[in-house]
């Protein structure tokens, strides 16, 4: 991570609010803080910062940073109101500077398997003596599918569904059941477009195929099963919409594979 970016963040926060960088995504640098920005509570909190990108023209950069910071904050507040949907809690938003404060979710997986996002979780079960097809994996993937189902059914899209953008959380170290949270809504949108939803599903499917190829078939099936469950709760109307979305999903997938690549 570049020193310039860190220096900028430290200056913004002042020495009174120390933070530790934990991840550099494409758009944002993520920090943890033990202090809450405005409550006396201590614990663990996430600061997500979208630094200016030198590579892009300042006017593109400013517009994107503001648009995505606000977009993400707004989406988090709307999604919170949907029953059953799990997204991180918004603590504060400073859109002018590209900062978001969020609740910390997830944990370090045992045996150094990394942070508990879906990607690392699936790797954990795929390596050593893990069983990649065990019921915990199946259960968790179905729950992930349900989360996406809830998102889509209620008229939203994620825009960047990958296995790193799904965080798993559990109530205690001995708890075997994991609750998936969707995170990183910088490219999310409020939309009823079947196309956007189809693309969302396609992007996730491809992410699973590219990073967990050996077991991708079963994994994608479980995801889709969870997804469908949500739609099926809404009777005939749900079935009709489910068909629309899955049909478009297959079209997008086909388009991807067959896309003409001639100059």
């Amino acid at each position, binding site marked *: 991570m570049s020193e310039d970016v860190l220096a900028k963040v430290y200056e913004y*926060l002042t020495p009174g609010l120390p933070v530790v960088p934990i991840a550099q995504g494409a758009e944002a640098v993520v920090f943890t803080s033990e202090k809450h920005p405005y*409550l006396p509570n201590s614990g663990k909190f996430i600061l997500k910062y979208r630094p200016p990108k030198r590579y892009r023209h300042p006017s593109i950069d400013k517009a994107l940073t503001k648009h995505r910071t*606000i977009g993400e904050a707004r989406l988090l*507040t709307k999604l919170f*109101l949907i029953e059953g949907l799990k997204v991180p809690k*918004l603590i*504060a*938003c400073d859109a*002018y500077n590209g900062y978001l404060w969020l609740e910390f979710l997830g944990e370090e997986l045992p045996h150094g398997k990394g942070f508990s996002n879906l990607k690392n979780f699936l790797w954990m079960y795929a390596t050593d003596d893990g069983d990649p097809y065990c019921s915990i994996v199946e259960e968790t993937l179905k729950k992930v599918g349900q989360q996406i189902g809830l998102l889509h059914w209620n008229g939203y899209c994620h825009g960047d569904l990958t296995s790193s953008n799904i965080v798993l959380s559990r109530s205690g170290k001995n708890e075997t059941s994991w609750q998936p949270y969707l995170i990183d809504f910088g490219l999310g949108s409020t939309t009823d477009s079947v196309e956007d939803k189809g693309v969302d599903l396609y992007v996730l499917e491809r992410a699973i195929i590219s990073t967990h190829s050996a077991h991708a078939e079963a994994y994608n099936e479980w995801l889709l099963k969870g997804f469908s469950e949500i739609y099926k709760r809404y009777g005939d109307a749900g079935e009709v919409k489910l068909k629309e979305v899955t049909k478009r999903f297959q079209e997008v997938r086909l388009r991807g594979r067959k896309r003409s690549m001639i100059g």
Partner: protein
Amino acid sequence: MIVSRFPQFPHYEISIALYEDVTNVEELRAKANSSLPFALINASLVFSVEQLYSAVYRVLIEHTYNKIQTASFSSECLLRLSASTKVSESQKFGLKYPSNRIICVNIEETTDDSIERPDETIFELVKGKSAVLEDENLSKKCDADTLRKIYKLDQTFQPERPDEFSRALVNAIQLRGL
């Protein structure tokens, strides 16, 4: 009275106090707009400490990086509590409607960053019984229906826990005007 500083803004001292059974509400109302340096907030529209501090944090963010839209910290506090961009709407959080439960908020720029002993005299104009500023106390006596109206939370939103209701308020405060 609670005196604190936010870690990110060490040069601002924030004093907050809750008074109940206030007897001079009319007098305070008359002075609220002009001469009082601190904000007077209708406590029945404050559900949680988080809601309150979340608004104060935004006051300081706007003050430092953008520009505050009202004349003073005190009016800005009301504005940032409000979910609407209209300044007139934010008056609801003040003493527009009579209430004898009042929260006082004072934001003071200081030269150092040490926490002083609470200066009980800053709010001495308020004639009332000092009460503990904590979630339980606030939520119990809070006017939830009016809050729902102000923050546009319809009845389909039925949180299981009080902190979820508080979260909805924080959401609205953080996104106001963006």
